[in-house]
């Protein structure tokens, strides 16, 4: 699979234990790929370390997946806040009936069962 610059770089960084987000001089925060500050057009966004622990904002257990996740269903998709940015990922090591909004999670990279593609995952700290 051809890499998606910026996004796959982010997954690399998560796997290396150095996840980051982008911050503008004005303190606005973004996720890559974002070559320019959308407010100014300047290429002055800087990488900042992502907090290690996030908090689940919401979640859902998906029974009917897209074909890329046929063999993964059912799985739990969630959005978690990591301070300056939020991320969407799949929950691991937490049974779907034990998931709670507000739960603390860490960020990682897993593999889909269907196509062995990299997937952002959330796990208990």
């Amino acid at each position, binding site marked *: 699979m051809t890499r998606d610059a910026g996004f796959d770089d982010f997954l690399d960084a998560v796997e290396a234990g150095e996840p980051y987000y982008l911050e503008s001089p004005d303190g606005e925060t973004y996720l890559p790929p974002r070559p320019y500050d959308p407010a100014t057009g300047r290429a002055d966004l800087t990488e900042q370390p992502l907090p290690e622990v996030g908090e689940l904002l919401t979640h*859902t*257990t998906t029974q009917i997946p*897209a*074909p890329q996740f046929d063999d993964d269903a059912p799985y739990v998709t969630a959005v978690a806040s990591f301070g300056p940015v939020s991320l969407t990922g799949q929950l691991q090591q937490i049974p779907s009936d034990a998931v709670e909004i507000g739960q603390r999670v860490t960020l990682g990279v897993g593999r889909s069962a269907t196509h062995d593609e990299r997937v952002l995952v959330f796990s208990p700290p």
Partner: protein
Amino acid sequence: MFVRAKPYTANGTDNSRPSPDHVCGSRPRIQNSSGGCFQAARGGHQPRATPGLRGRRAAVNLWLRFDRGSWRVDVTDVPVAGVGMTPFGRHAERTGRDLFAEAATRAFDDAGVDREAVEEVFFGNFMGEFAETQGHQGPLAAEMAGVDAPATRLESACASSGAAIRYGVERIRGGADVVLVGGAERMNNLSTADTTEALAAAADALWESRAGMTFPGAYALMANRYFELFGGDREDLAHISVKNHANALENDLAQYQRALTVEDVLGATQISSPFGLYDCSPISDGASAAVLVSESYAETHGLDTPVRITGTGQGSDRFALQDRESMVSTPAAERAGERAFAQADIGPNDVDVAEVHDCFTIAEVLALEALGFYEPGTAIGAARRGETTADGDLPVNLSGGLKAKGHPVGATGCAQLSELTKLLRGDHVNSDVVSDATVGVTHNAGGTVASCVVHVLEADG
């Protein structure tokens, strides 16, 4: 003082419109010589273009007014000359072009307007490349409608034909006399899995789809967040589905003319928690069309156009759900509604009936709050309390909504216009429910409401 505007270059954005402050509300007003203004009576209020005043075709269908030292623009109403749609449902073997030809024919028949009069076509379609390996659908749609005019396809996910209407309205205001708008979608030729994949293309391919987020999943994330912040439960949502199915019982254009009970909804196959099958709009094939005309054209051709589009608004939001300030509000819809209401010079309390984008049950809740019918966190129980049912204070989705009427994505926005026009004209099967209604609103959302188009329709009282 009003003067007819000379040809102008419109940039097509809402930002180009004067704010309500500037025009004292864009509901047609007559200004006195001192620069103040007062509102004309409803009906016959609009400064109409007479043949003598209209002059060359290059004239524009809006008015300039001198206010506080500068010229301001007042937008004109856009009469809906005719509407048409195919029955929505499972027509797996019918192509999108075939479906649109039928919808356009119905719209022309309804309008009593010659195809030769059409000056431009705006056509909504979302997943043509995926479902039919067919792109470049603007001229194809025009050809199938029998129209020889510039034609453009608009893609804004589920709001595609809502956007087509908006561009049609702006084109009429820009000087055209007749515009054909509409949309079509063929979905049932794909498997459920492939349709799920196609619909997911409206989400962020990197940050959402690659995490396995489906569209039911995206709205499920919003629903669970809503429950967490405001309360409510699956049974509240079930009442929305029951209501919209009840509204569609006599609507022959609806995909489902079948009543549901709350128990049916709660016991349905799980799709993405908290949604079961009946919280989700169906996979549908269908098309819709409308013929929009200028007021002068309607007048000079003796058209009966009791319903007019008096406000149009469109809004956008951060694309991915995770990047929004809130997952339980839809600012794109708020902005679209504010703009449409301001143009029409009405507020939520003036609305008699609404067709809103209930692709999933929670979406109807978010729409009602975004449009100002309810405070945040309070629309969840509206259907359960009977406030939005056919006999409620604000009947919502009398057509059956996306939930029961069906949701052929690119056709949905114009189908809302078609159904609401008929409801206000009095020739919809459910018109008797709102026999005194004169003001209606359509709300057509794309994606997880990263885009939204709102229109205000008004009928002669």
